């Protein structure tokens, strides 16, 4: 088996056994990027130092240094995360070429665990979008069908692992930006409990919703990566001080046990109805049957206030974003555009923000400014914060009855590039399944659920657990993944079309 087809846990084991070297593994992935990324465009930047980092890890290992289970494994990093040695643009013209003077805490943890950063992945500008079409640097294409979107905002990270350009990636999830791309690219993604992973160095979209998490091809790999990046960070006030269990243990136990005996699984009535694609619903029903057969108790639960989740989300997010993005003003970093004939600093700021932000970013900044402005605050932002309370109460009530909640990760399979670009509202409605978990801060996982019969494209299952019970995602997810693969006789990602090497060379060495 080629290195690029291996899972991160397999690579980690072989690296630990010194059967293979990190340089070989890293080289294989760089070659794969060069071969296919011209078509996929998952990467905005490919690290020039990946091979030397890999060589360093290899020599340390040979010298007997103790290393973690993912040491030497390459990883792609969403461009929303600050890296001191690579540009960090968040998919925006505003930050083109900007290299921060510091690493995000999660990136520091990757380096300390000796993972090998391969590069930075494409995303909707400032993580605003569900298709990666809002990247200032061009869209990413879905490896299953290059005409289709890879989801968003983290389409680059999802496509990178789905196209075997990286075994692991980091994403960020504000309203589904990890789980929805996982669904439409046939990969695995986890949004941890809010506060479970540090946000320090993640370029903020909506501070009370953002969470960094793993993007992988298997549940175990997600758990291994979560173990590396999780834990308290004194630089993030919202970071939890909890002692976390080893998530990889939970994932292995789920996979090896293949049993859901006694697990109460709640099906959220409001997240499986009108507007959901037939193939998504049929695959979801099959998955429920398989879980039931494995001993799970399937219960329908109602979360009546989820109906208002999108509305609340599209007030809270733009409001926080309008403030978070105010720092892009051409003074300390990033783009500066001088208006024709010069002007005052006010003119320069306004011209810069006009030129540097894309349409979707401007739309949300204006919407957020409106939601916070005098006379509207109570009706909009204030009310949205109350809806948030109601949604939390729905979760609390549901988790009184069940251990985890499930729904499809996304209402449809991947839509075509350009299909919803002119209809922002339709694009927003696509996030219905994933938004409630962000509003309530509870953890959620997206994992492959099978291909939709009508279009042969991936569908995804979402599992949600109570706040701080992320381990349940891995035990239930690990079991479901194994049970589904047993029923199919193969992994879902193995069915993805082989990508032909393109003549166009992938971006390399710093060009976006």
């Amino acid at each position, binding site marked *: 088996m080629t290195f690029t087809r291996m899972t991160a846990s397999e690579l980690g084991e072989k690296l630990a056994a010194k059967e293979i070297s990190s340089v070989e593994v890293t080289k294989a992935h760089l070659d794969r990027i060069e071969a296919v990324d011209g078509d996929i465009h998952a990467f905005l930047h490919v690290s020039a130092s990946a091979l030397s980092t890999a060589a360093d890890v290899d020599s340390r290992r040979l010298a007997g240094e103790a290393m973690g289970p993912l040491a030497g494994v390459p990883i792609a990093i969403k461009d929303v*995360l*600050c890296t001191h040695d690579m540009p*960090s643009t*968040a998919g925006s013209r505003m*930050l083109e070429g*900007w290299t*921060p*003077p*510091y690493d*995000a805490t999660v990136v520091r943890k990757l380096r300390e665990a000796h993972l090998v950063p391969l590069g930075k992945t494409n995303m909707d500008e400032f993580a605003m979008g569900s298709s990666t079409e809002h990247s200032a640097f061009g869209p990413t294409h879905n490896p299953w069908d290059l005409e289709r979107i890879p989801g968003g905002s983290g389409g680059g990270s999802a496509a990178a692992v789905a196209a075997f350009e990286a075994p692991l990636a980091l994403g960020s999830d504000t309203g589904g930006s990890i789980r929805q791309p996982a669904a439409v690219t046939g990969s695995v993604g986890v949004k941890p409990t809010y506060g479970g992973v540090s*946000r*320090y*160095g*993640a*370029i*903020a979209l*909506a*501070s*009370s919703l953002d969470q960094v998490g793993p993007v992988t091809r298997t549940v175990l790999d997600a758990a291994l990566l979560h173990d590396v990046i999780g834990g308290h960070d*004194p*630089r*993030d*006030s*919202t970071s939890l001080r909890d002692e976390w269990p080893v998530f990889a243990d939970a994932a292995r136990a789920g996979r090896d046990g293949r049993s859901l005996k006694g697990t109460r699984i709640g099906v959220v009535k409001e997240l499986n109805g009108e507007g959901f694609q037939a193939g998504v619903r049929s695959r979801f029903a099959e998955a429920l049957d398989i879980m039931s057969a494995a001993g799970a108790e399937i219960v329908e639960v109602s979360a009546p206030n989820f109906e208002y989740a999108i509305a609340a989300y599209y007030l809270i997010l733009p*409001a*926080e974003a*309008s*403030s978070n993005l*105010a*720092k*892009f*003003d051409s*003074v*300390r*970093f990033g783009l500066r555009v001088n208006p024709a004939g010069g002007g005052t*600093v*006010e003119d320069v*700021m306004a011209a810069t923000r006009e030129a540097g932000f894309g349409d979707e970013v401007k739309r949300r900044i204006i919407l957020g*400014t409106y939601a*916070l*402005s*005098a006379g509207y*605050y109570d009706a909009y*932002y204030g009310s949205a914060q109350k809806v948030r309370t109601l949604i939390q109460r729905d979760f609390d009530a549901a988790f009184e009855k069940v251990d985890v909640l499930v729904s499809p990760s996304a209402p449809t399979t991947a839509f075509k590039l350009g299909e919803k670009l002119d209809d922002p509202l339709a694009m927003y409605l696509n996030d219905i399944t994933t938004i409630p978990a962000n509003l309530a801060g509870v953890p959620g996982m997206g994992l492959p659920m099978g291909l939709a019969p009508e279009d042969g494209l991936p569908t995804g299952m979402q599992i949600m657990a109570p706040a701080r019970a992320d381990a349940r995602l891995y035990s239930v997810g690990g079991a479901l993944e194994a049970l589904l693969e047993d029923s199919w006789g193969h992994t879902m990602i193995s069915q993805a079309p082989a990508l032909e090497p393109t003549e166009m060379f992938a971006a390399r060495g710093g060009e976006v």
Partner: protein
Amino acid sequence: MAKPELMDYDKAIELFEPVLGFEVHVELNTRSKMFSDAPNPAHPDFHVAEANTQITPVDLGLPGSLPVVNEEAIKYSISLGLALGCSIAPSSRFARKNYFYPDLAKNYQISQFDEPIAFDGNVEVELADGRTFQIPIERAHMEEDAGKLTHVGGATGRIQGAEYSLVDYNRAGVPLVEIVTNIIYGAEGDAPELAKAYVSAIRDIVVSLGISEARMERGNLRCDANISLSPRGSGKLGTRTETKNVNSLRSVERAIRYEIQRQAAILAGGGTIIQETRHWHEDTGRTSAGRPKSDADDYRYFPEPDLLPVEPSTQLIEELRAALPEPPAVRHRRLKESWGFTDLEFQDVVNSGLLVEVEATVTAGASAQQARKWWTGEIARLANAAGEDAATLVSPQQVANLVALIDDGTLTDRLARQVLEGVIAGEGTPAEVVESRGLAVVSDDTALIAAIDDALASQPDVLAKIRDGKVQAAGAVIGAVMKAMRGQADAARVRELVLERANA
């Protein structure tokens, strides 16, 4: 700019009732900043630094950076709230105040809005004649300072006409407490004095708490004064202006007085007051119009999602309450008694705004009377002439050292005044100035006797008169001796020796 018309002050007060309100910003002297671990330039250890060296990604508002609250700043704020007689909120929150300005790294200021840490307080202030006045405190809230702008090109470094500006973010993130008063009625003609006494009282409080350097000229303590005039008998509040840039106790008083006279002239002439920010200019003694308040002041406050509520325990609050220094009024009574001052002497010190300095000078070893005499006399005079606050000219330790030199006979009062000038000019400690300027009293009798003998020999007529018992004639000899000694002799001793030598 034409000189605006001013109404005679007494006339203004006759026609209008001044209504006041103050916002005082206090920079806390914690070691690190409010929301980052950068060194705090408002702490004495970190005063001096090159531009943009006291910053972290947080202070620069770099993408991805996050604030974390300084626990000491919370404690200082609670202590200040308690000293202002406020209730401490069981739960308070930070909020973002959104506006674009190049000195504001994130283009929002982390402040507190509807849930400040302290509220509903009261500060007692004393006027020159000993009357006391209660200033109602609406709230005290925590926030962060902004960076500093330098305007280049154009005239005199002002913003108008500048070609470009330079930004230094060292000050960005310095912890601030903003103390907001309720509307203050009834100050009447005492309004300017009351304003000064209030700011002085706040200064005394923060100094006694040890939570701020409280140097107005360094911006540690800043006062924005709201003033409006209500026509007598109208029962209606007037339109207010907010005067900023008032950087000394003295200018607080002057600015209020000026603004009352300016507004009164406009109102009496049938004009209207524009609700606006006004800037005080120390040099011209005027205020100038700034930005009009308008609908554009929509700060879009919302709870700061990156920070959590502050919920101090009752235990912490009570610990901090127990550790409070005595309230200024109580302290005044105690000091007056222990120093043995008359009412007039003590009021003189309070009115000069130099109580803290006098006390520190006494603590440093000087007698209370000497400390009072030097601070309210010579030092205040020099400060007044220089247009600066006396406290900024010289330290209490230096004054105590000066007094010690007088007490041990090294200096006469006259010499001491010269030494003081040297100290203020930055020539060193009093002892160093005595040394470098050669100002010590000549206490060697041999040198004095030689000079006296010379003087007597050159004025035989005077010698004869003294010998005749006309003692007052000795004055001429004493004068000549003092001149010969360049003033560095104790005149009483010279007189003694003259009489002794003349009759020898």
